[in-house]
């Protein structure tokens, strides 16, 4: 008798399963949400290009998601994806990478892609640590936390990447956690459908290289905390910075229609090609 096969396995490179994520890692949940979002939208993976960088969450699309994939250098997936999208605007181009990649070493590309409002979807998996390299402090690590490179305590405040992307000019920005699987799925669909730069900050867990240093030993420990810490953006009106300091503000941070970058580039190209054609004909 053939083994029962999950309906979503056709979206995955099943030949290389089982996956390599640690027990309790949030990456599996993000992959699950992503594949469900793709199926729900009716997107053909053959009409998608998934781009990732270096870090655990960059493995979500590469190698696991079965589409054209571009596994780039550390920090640069958005810049690589920009070239892909410009030359193939008909394909859905998605970046899935970590906080170190997207908000740390590659932060400049994030700001400028949001400012240009290029039609990419960027799903930044924020586990608040450099997990793959063994638990070093990230730009997203909360103040006060001891990591391998902040052995006394981290003195830097955590980067609020989603707020940065709103300010930089993206069309669609949201923040969710791995506890909020269904809203995350729906949000991913909104981002991929949106004509313009879509960004979701997904607060995720790394029990292995972060949790064990802050007393959250398992995936469920994290999920319970995410549930307690989270507050819907609609409920934050009138709350002070101090009141929100240890909270995770979740929900849709912005959703606006603005001119999109790639379509404008192609518009200029068409105008110029037409002008040459007219000149040659005339």
């Amino acid at each position, binding site marked *: 008798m053939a083994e029962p096969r999950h309906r979503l396995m056709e979206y995955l*490179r099943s030949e*290389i399963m089982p996956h390599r994520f640690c027990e309790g890692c949030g990456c599996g949940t993000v992959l699950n949400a992503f594949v469900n979002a793709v199926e729900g939208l009716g997107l053909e*993976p*053959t*009409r998608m*290009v998934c*781009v990732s960088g270096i870090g655990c969450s960059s493995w979500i699309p*590469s*190698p696991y998601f*079965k*589409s*054209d*994939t*571009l*596994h*780039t*250098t550390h*920090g*640069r997936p958005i*810049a*690589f*994806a*920009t*070239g*892909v999208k*410009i*030359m*193939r605007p*008909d*394909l859905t181009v998605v970046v899935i990478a970590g906080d170190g990649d997207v908000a740390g070493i590659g932060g*400049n*590309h994030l*700001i*400028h892609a949001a400012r240009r409002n290029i039609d990419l979807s960027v799903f930044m998996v924020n586990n608040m640590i450099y997990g793959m390299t063994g638990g070093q402090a990230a730009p997203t690590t909360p103040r006060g936390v001891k990591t391998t490179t902040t052995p006394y305590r981290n003195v830097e405040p955590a980067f609020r990447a989603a707020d940065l992307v709103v300010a930089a000019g993206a069309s669609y920005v949201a923040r969710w956690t791995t506890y909020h699987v269904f809203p995350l799925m729906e949000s991913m669909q909104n981002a991929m459908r949106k004509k313009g730069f879509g960004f979701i900050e997904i607060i995720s867990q790394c029990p292995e290289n972060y949790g064990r240093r802050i007393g959250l030993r398992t995936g469920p420990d994290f999920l319970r905390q995410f549930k307690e810490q989270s507050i819907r953006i609609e409920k934050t009106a009138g709350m002070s910075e101090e009141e929100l300091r240890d909270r995770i503000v979740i929900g849709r941070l912005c959703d606006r229609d603005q001119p999109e970058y790639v379509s404008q*580039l*192609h518009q*200029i*190209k068409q*105008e*110029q*090609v037409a*002008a*040459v*054609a007219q*000149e*040659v004909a005339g």
Partner: protein
Amino acid sequence: MALDANQTRYLSRLEGKTYFLLGDEACAYGAMFAGCDFFAGYPITPASEIAEMIAEELPKSGGICVQMEDELASIAAIIGAAWTGARTMTATSGPGFSLMQENIGYAIMTETPCVIVNVQRSGPSTGQATKPAQGDVLQARWGTHGDHNIIALAPNSVQECLDLMLDCFDLADNYRTPVIMLMDGAIGHIRERVTMPQLATITHASRKMAAPGEDVFGGSDLVPGMIHYGAGQNIHVTGSTHLANGMRDVATPKVHDVLIKRIYAKIDKNRERIVRTELDVAQNSVARVGVLSYGATARPAYGAVKRARGEGKPIDFLRLITIWPFARQQVAEFAENFDTLLVPEMNLGQISREIERFVDCRVVSVPKIGGIPHTVGEILHAIREVA
């Protein structure tokens, strides 16, 4: 890849015409005659005129030019775009070329055809930003980490800035590799007559394509065929060590050994097909002294050789058009009967060390830095010291 209708229509207005252009501008036109579809860059002296010319002209031929936030992003974008089937390029100078090194390695490892123009300026660091140099010759060869090979060409006239761009794009496609157009600030910023090619006389290499299901990163040939994004083949491209099918395998020594040696060999074993030099030997007598140069320096070097011949000294001259892979055999044959080989270059002696590995005669470096190219007199003086 053959020119499309938009490119042909645009270029038909230019073909055969003669203009008075900067080397940088000729480079931009060369890219368009080569069928460039996509340019991404970041402003830098003395390469900005390439981006400016391309920004104005490329959309007219149906291509797209973008300015990115830095050079890291510029080369990343052209690599991404190359996987959609586009002919892509960027242009920069020393500081930007330094920033690009990691992704040049990525393009080598993923066998991505693309062209990187480096209009060399005086360094290190900001150096003399507006002054020419040839200080990036070894960086072009070894700038990115790990074992690898590279192709680099050096034009010595504005006409060649145009002509060699066609070669750069063809070499990139033929060998599925990044190709460096190693200009220098002197060539980029002089203005000379340039004749645009006739469309009927130029050819374009076709990028070898793999059949659906075939391996894209290995197989029986040194250069595997490509499959572009959007073809429904779920192509997996990674800078990690990978199998012939593109899937990551960083643990098996043999996988790395086979991959890296093949990527190295595809240029090494085709050295004689790739390498181009220009030889000018003294008439009527056997020279015991030779001069070897390249790029802008080859101009005063050749001038000095002609002056020395006028003084009755038989001097042979060789110009490297291809800098990398190194013209080992041509240089060894050139220097076979020499006592001394003079090597003027706008650095402290980068290519002269490479030459020492392949010739038996004495190699004398004639270095010059500071931002002013050698004069004929300076090189003639060096010749008189040995001949």
